[in-house]
């Protein structure tokens, strides 16, 4: 006895025990699995360092920590009063690094810090500034604001800050897209609402912490709700938390709905036998457990969407049970237990081949750049294999003669019998339809133009609200980033200054509205030291000041405080990121300066604001040509390019998968004619579905592609069965009794129906990933069955009801 045969015997003898052990192991793994539901699994894995920075920023950078808040309802006075009070509550909570609502009194601490360090931080400080001319000009600039409503900032401090460094710092830090201010708070320009923006302390990727911060926002607003005011919250954190909740509830809903539908169908098909029902669900349960266990072992977690998708697996795995339970029924006069043997000989090779084709198709997903899709692929392969193996090894023991119940299947059998008789007659129109689909596809522009945003489950209404709030707050998504890196903090800040110096001319020329730079908040130590060196000693300053104030508005004798402050600044310790900790400036710096660690360098990010026309990346790159390490990242085009590349890669993977399926069939069937016979209905179904989407103008993305792959994987099973029947008929001597009966065909129809139902459930899902798959697969596999029946003609048995 050779080793493989011994193994075979062992497997046959102990199949049930082995299965039980595996199921228990899988269940144990599934119980200890970490289930996740954030959407980052459906962001592609980044191929380049720049894109890694970009995705990192998207997932956990400052943009991911922003919360946009609107207060609506009530009167303008109520809203601004609420905004002031609410912002205080939020600041006191400690959950937010910054809360901005336009209330400048909140910046007292910042103001004091800036004032105390003005000679290190003001961009105007240099040697020229402290010359006689420089002092005179500075004093004239600062005093020009006195006696105007805008002079309020400088008036209390002008004797200590006669050159107006306070104003110069404020100018440099004020955003160029500031919100409208009224009643002391920010308000919307387009709608009656007060607006606030907060930065959560929690990392954007930490959804639990984000959820806590959002809950805090809601509970903190409760007192204002009683006044008839409404809270609106948006931002990527709130989207992520909402998506996660949505995915969770949706997956539960899908699992329940799918389960109920399948059980109902089984009851209809086999009558009310509980035993049959439980048996039929065995491969499904085994498949789901195996899928979860495999994904959990390989990926370390299981995504909610994978689980939601897994419910469709119920639809396909239950097919195996249906095929077996119907096809293994004992024939009249046969010995008990013969059904299983007959099924293993007649049908198992087809089921096995179907399994192989499915595995081939799904294997393409394993190499996907989206971790989420790789999970779907693995889940499907493990799940389907487990379900098929359970059918082959466990069912043949548990139910050696299939399932006895007939339920309403007789009617289904009639209908299918009628269909298989009628459909081949409309073969020509159906073939014409396929040809039409080919022409439509060739004529219409490619529908493959989906983008990353199409994967987001956030509805259009919420996106619109988000865009409105962003416009109100001047927080429109930075279209373009410039990233520079250096081994340390000082280097990164210096690089940022270098880039800033290249950008200033562009701002002056109007090619750019402005930019945010970490060096604006915290100048590099070199620049601070340079400013410090420019400060003259007390005697020199006093002499120059005396000259500079002749005939000027401020008499020198009143400026003693100025001389004292400048002297103190000469020996002031330089500011670092560390010394900003605990000040409100830290949040602003943290957003733009990403600390390095052993592996990655320090990174400074400069975000650009476009003026009237869009930022031209080529112009930027030209301006930054001599700055080493400066990378211009245009976020939207970059992400689109990333997605397009993945779509392109995935298309190739899918085509390779399809090719592998064909090769597998060719190898197994060793007949070009039969390969053509099987490929034709499936390919036609795919083409017709694609053409329909093109005509409907749907933008297709990576998940539609997955759907098509699934259509091929499942649809080819039906074609295989029809081909098997046809082949058997062709090899039978003329006049021999036909083994085909309507009940076998009914098993195909029933399997199809369960699969179509489970994919229809996905098609009404509000999660785009599942919606896209369901939308493609449900019509795709229904068509596959119809076209298989039409294109692969089988002869009818003499007794239409079939033998019972």
């Amino acid at each position, binding site marked *: 006895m050779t080793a493989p045969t011994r193994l075979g015997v062992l497997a046959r003898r102990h199949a049930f025990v082995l299965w039980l052990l595996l199921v228990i192991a899988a269940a144990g793994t599934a119980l200890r699995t970490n289930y996740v539901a954030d959407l980052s699994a459906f962001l592609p894995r980044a191929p380049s360092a720049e894109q890694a920075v970009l995705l990192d920023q998207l997932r956990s950078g400052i943009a991911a920590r922003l919360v946009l808040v609107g207060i609506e309802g009530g009167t303008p006075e109520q809203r601004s009063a609420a905004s002031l009070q609410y912002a205080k509550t939020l600041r006191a909570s400690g959950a937010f690094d910054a809360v901005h609502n336009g209330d400048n009194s909140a910046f007292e601490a910042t103001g004091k810090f800036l004032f105390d360090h003005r000679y290190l931080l003001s961009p105007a400080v240099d040697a020229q500034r402290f010359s006689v001319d420089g002092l005179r*000009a500075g004093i*004239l*600039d600062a*005093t*020009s604001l*006195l*006696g*105007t*409503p*805008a002079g*309020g900032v400088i*008036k209390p401090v*002008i004797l200590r800050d006669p050159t107006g460094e306070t104003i110069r710092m404020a*100018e440099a830090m*004020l955003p*160029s*897209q*500031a*919100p*409208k*201010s*009224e*009643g*002391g708070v920010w308000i919307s*320009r387009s709608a009656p609402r007060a607006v606030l923006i907060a930065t959560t302390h929690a990392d954007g990727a930490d959804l639990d912490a984000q959820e806590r911060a959002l809950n805090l926002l809601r509970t903190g607003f409760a007192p204002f709700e009683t006044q008839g005011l409404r809270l609106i919250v948006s931002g990527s954190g709130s989207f992520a938390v909402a998506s996660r909740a949505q995915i969770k509830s949706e997956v539960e809903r899908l699992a329940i709905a799918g389960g109920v539908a399948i059980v109902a169908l089984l009851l209809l098909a086999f009558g009310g036998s509980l035993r049959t029902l439980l048996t039929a669900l065995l491969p499904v349960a085994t498949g789901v457990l195996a899928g979860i266990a495999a994904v959990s072992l390989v990926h370390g977690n299981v995504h909610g969407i994978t689980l939601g998708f897994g419910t469709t697996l119920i639809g396909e795995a239950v097919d195996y049970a249906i095929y077996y339970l119907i096809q293994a029924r004992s024939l009249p006069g046969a010995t008990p237990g013969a059904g299983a043997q007959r099924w293993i000989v007649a049908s198992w090779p087809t089921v096995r081949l179907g399994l192989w084709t499915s595995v081939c198709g799904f294997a393409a997903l394993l190499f996907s750049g989206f971790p989420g899709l790789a999970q779907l692929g693995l889940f499907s392969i493990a799940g389907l294999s487990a379900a098929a193996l359970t059918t082959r090894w466990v069912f043949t023991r548990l139910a050696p003669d299939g399932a006895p119940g007939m339920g309403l299947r007789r009617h289904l059998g009639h209908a299918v019998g009628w269909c298989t008789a009628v459909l081949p007659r409309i073969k020509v129109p159906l073939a014409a339809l396929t040809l039409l689909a080919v022409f439509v596809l060739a004529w219409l522009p490619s529908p493959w133009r989906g983008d990353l945003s199409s994967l987001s489950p956030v509805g259009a209404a919420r996106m619109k609200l988000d865009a409105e709030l962003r416009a109100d707050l*001047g927080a429109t998504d930075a279209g373009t980033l410039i990233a520079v890196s250096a081994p340390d903090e000082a280097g990164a800040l210096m690089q940022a200054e270098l880039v800033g110096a290249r950008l200033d001319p562009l*701002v*002056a020329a109007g090619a750019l*509205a*402005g930019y945010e730079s970490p060096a604006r908040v915290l100048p590099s130590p070199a620049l601070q030291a340079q400013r410090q060196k420019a400060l003259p000693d007390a005697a020199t300053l006093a002499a120059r000041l005396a000259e500079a104030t002749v005939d000027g*508005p*401020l*008499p020198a004798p009143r400026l003693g405080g100025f001389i004292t402050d400048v002297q103190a600044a000469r020996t002031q310790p330089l500011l670092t990121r560390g010394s900003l900790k605990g000040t409100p400036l830290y949040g602003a710096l943290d957003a733009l300066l990403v600390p390095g660690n052993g592996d990655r360098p320090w990174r400074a990010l400069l975000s650009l604001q476009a003026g009237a026309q869009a930022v031209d990346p080529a112009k930027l790159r030209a301006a930054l040509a001599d700055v080493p390490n400066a990378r211009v990242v245009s976020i939207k085009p970059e992400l689109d390019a990333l997605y397009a590349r993945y779509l392109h890669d995935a298309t190739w993977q899918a085509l390779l998968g399809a090719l592998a399926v064909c090769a597998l069939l060719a190898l197994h069937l060793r007949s070009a004619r039969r390969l053509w016979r099987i490929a034709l209905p499936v390919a036609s179904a795919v083409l017709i579905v694609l053409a329909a989407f093109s005509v409907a103008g749907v933008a297709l993305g990576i998940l539609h592609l997955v759907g098509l792959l699934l259509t091929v994987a499942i649809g080819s099973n039906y074609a295989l069965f029809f081909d098997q029947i046809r082949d058997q008929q062709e090899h039978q001597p003329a006049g021999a009794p036909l083994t085909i009966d309507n009940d076998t065909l009914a098993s195909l129809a029933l399997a199809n129906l369960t699969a179509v139902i489970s994919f229809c459930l996905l098609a009404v899902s509000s999660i785009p990933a599942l919606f896209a798959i369901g939308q493609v697969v449900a019509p795709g596999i229904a068509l596959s069955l119809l076209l298989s029946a039409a294109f692969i003609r089988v002869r009818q048995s003499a007794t239409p009801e079939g033998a019972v």
Partner: protein
Amino acid sequence: MTPLDRRQALASLLALGGAAAWPMGARAQTAPFDLTELMQLLAKVRAGEAVFTEKRSVAMLERTLESSGRLSFEAPDTFVRETLKPRQERLAVVGNMVTMSSGQRSRTVPLDSVPEAAVIVEAIRGTLTGNRDAIERHFSASVTGNAVRWTLELVPRMPRLRELVTSVRVSGQQAVVNEVVVAMADGDRSVMSITPRG
């Protein structure tokens, strides 16, 4: 008499003469003159240029601050104030965007994000372009005098702005604005005299 004062006197005379020559102007003298009529009168001039001198008295300073320069406006919403003395400075408002330039520096921000700057800009721009909506949105306005010589008293609507600016008083003759007086809540005061050019 400085050349500037002479021009101003000339302009006043011309304006008076013009008013006397027009029957409509004559009627305006007798009929009650209100904001609507004043704004209609001002709105007839679509664009204009002027020179200004501004004197500001600030409590904490011993001497008055003086500056001078050019003003220009163009309906519907462009207003430029260019200070030439003592330092060159430029404030240009187009729609809701205000650009402040001084030497090499230039900054553009939305006007409505800095209400303390907007209050003066809206008063002067709104008057020069005869934009009644803009005036009424930001101020409670009262007009005294007649078409030949009128005074427009503007009090900011927002309580928070009234804490800064008590009133803006604009006076003029016919469609010509002669003077803008800003009274600050802290007692500071600025007087801007305007003389049309061309």
